[in-house]
């Protein structure tokens, strides 16, 4: 007979079936075991996800200087943010980055994945080469790209020696700085999506492609009518993840421009960092983090709703 905690034993008493093996008791015992097995994950989730999320919500409702005591201010931090012209610029900058970066990243990675078909010789070597920027630390990449962009750097020096004209000061010119950051980010980021697309394309059954070919479909048609629909779940996944990470861009502008010139390359996460750690306003920083979270959540939701139209699950 199973020994039960007193409370469960009382609860089990009215049942006639308890004379033999009580299913309630088994259920209770199982759920304790289940809870036991799930607890490492549950504790981890609570400690490292739920507690920080709730804490940041609480902080965002307070005037919370890094040193000193916080005071409750309600939604003041949010209204202060919405009234701040710099914050509006920052939202625009981040959106501009996303609009430029996400499509470019997807086009480049898809183009290269399509080109790297099994027919290409040494495709594994190309795959590794294209993947290298993704696995090297982004800070090191940014430092190298700074040397390429700066006056007397690679681009400027090459232009001077070949056509005798100086290149623009990419990182210190408002019109160029964001484009320079996007270019560097695409170079850094396309490898990951390329690998996903390449694997997805490889899994498209050869028989279907052959059938299409016999029906007279060219490379273009068979890509759009067969390959694209078949890999659309992978494209959806890649587009979603790229979009989310693009909204969180930080390291590239932080290293290349510090958010300048002016605030032309200050992104949302950099704004959060500056407010929190340079300006020491943890309340404002947390409020901005919530704004970022809501933007990402809304766009992800829209994408999920829109996927029905173009993503085909078998």
């Amino acid at each position, binding site marked *: 007979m199973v020994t039960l905690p007193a409370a469960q034993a009382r609860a089990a008493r009215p049942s006639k079936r308890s004379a033999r093996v009580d299913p309630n008791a088994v259920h209770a015992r199982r759920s304790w075991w289940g809870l036991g097995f799930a607890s490492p994950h549950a504790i981890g989730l609570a400690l490292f996800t739920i507690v920080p999320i709730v804490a940041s919500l609480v902080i965002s409702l307070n005037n919370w200087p890094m040193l000193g005591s916080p005071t409750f201010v309600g939604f003041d931090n949010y209204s202060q943010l919405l009234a701040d012209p710099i914050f509006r610029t920052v939202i625009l900058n981040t959106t501009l980055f996303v609009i430029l970066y996400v499509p470019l990243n997807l086009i480049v990675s898809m183009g290269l994945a399509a080109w790297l078909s099994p027919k290409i010789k040494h495709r594994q070597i190309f795959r590794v080469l294209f993947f290298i920027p993704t696995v090297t630390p982004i800070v090191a990449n940014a430092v190298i790209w700074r040397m390429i962009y*700066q006056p007397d750097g690679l681009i400027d020096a090459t232009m001077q020696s070949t056509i005798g004209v100086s290149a623009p000061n990419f990182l*210190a010119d408002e019109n160029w700085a964001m484009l320079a950051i996007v270019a560097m980010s695409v170079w850094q980021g396309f490898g990951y999506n390329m690998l996903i697309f390449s694997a997805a394309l490889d899994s498209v059954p050869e028989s279907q492609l052959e059938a299409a070919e016999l029906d007279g479909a060219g490379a273009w048609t068979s890509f759009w009518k067969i390959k694209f629909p078949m890999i659309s779940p992978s494209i959806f996944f890649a587009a979603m993840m790229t979009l989310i990470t693009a909204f969180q861009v930080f390291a590239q502008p932080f290293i290349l421009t*510090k958010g300048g010139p002016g605030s032309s390359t200050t992104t949302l996460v950099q704004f959060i960092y500056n407010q929190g750690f340079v300006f020491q306003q943890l309340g404002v920083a947390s409020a901005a983090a919530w704004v970022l979270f809501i933007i990402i959540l809304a766009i992800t939701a829209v994408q999920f709703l829109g996927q029905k139209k173009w993503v085909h699950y078998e």
Partner: protein
Amino acid sequence: MKRQLMAGAAMAGVLALTACSGGSATGSQSEESLVWSMWIAGKEDQAAWQTVADEVKSADKIDVTIQGAPFTDYWTKLRTQLSAGTAPCIVTVQSLRAANFTDVLLPLDDLAKSSGTALDEFDSTALDAMKVDGDLYALPYDTGPLIMYYNKDLFKEAGVPEPKAGWSVDDFEAAGAALKAAGKQLYATSVEDLYLESMILSYNGGRVISEDGSLDVANAKFADGLDWLAGLVEEGYATQASADGSADDNAFVNGQAATFIDGPWSLLSTKSKATFDLGVVTIPAGSTPTTFSAGSGFGISKECKYPEQAYQAITTMTTEEVLSKLGTEGRAFPARTAAQSAWFDNAGIEGVEDTFAAAQDGSVPLPGNKSSDQLAQLFSQYAIQAINGQQTGAEVLDQISSQLPK
């Protein structure tokens, strides 16, 4: 047996968790073991400061553990630690940033009095720089006026006479024209607070932090100073401004630009990197030669439970012997008058003592302000627009000022 194994594993897990929750060595400070936070520029730097820590070990029997971070990240890290309650006992502070930390640093006046420290043996400028509203917050270890470094070889190549202490803005611009003719640039531009502010102070007396430490960001003279620098860039006399804090040092060391501004603390390390003959001179002056002076020192965090031991440690870290050693290594221009000769003897740069004397004569302390870190961040974003000629100095200062607390 199995049960014992499980128990052992569980204990190990608990230990690992508690070790994590300590976060760092700062959690385990004691009377005999203190943590010292310091900015560290590399392995050699680390080794040099380790000898200072070793000195405390042998003199006071206190283990001092260095917790290093690069200078640019140091302030962010330190403030985060102080707010998270994991403060190191010994904290290195820069004079112009002392005002940002007065609420977390222990005033040292009482400790100095009770331990009979002879404060008058310190260089008075260095000591004053560590005071905020009359209270002493750190024992200084280095000090000095901001000066201009120059490349003697480039000046010679361009046929420009070597600059002398007290040279004027006109002399400076004339040198710029000659160097331009020789295909070189005169000045490696910096938008870092200390260097930018010193250059403009010497040009026309414009300053964004007044003598009493209050902010005056929309200062019209300072705006003129930015426009003057923009003129130098436009003429091709100066390099374009960059958000990268090491761009000026690099342009100078590569021989791309013939001058740049720095403090005495970098002189010997720059000399070791340069492949040319290095000289130092006062910053070119619009009228009367003047410059800012700055320095650094060791303070004690308010949270520290062992202030007496920490004070003992920082006293040892700033003795004449230790500072002379740091001076000889070129790590710091000593904040004790008696130790300064060691630095001069080792510098091996002609005329360095005269230049220092002249610069020191005209130097004024750069007072700190609670917003100086924010100001530094905004300079790196906005000042480059003024200097590269995309906006006027006044426009840029207006934008910076609108983002700082009134």
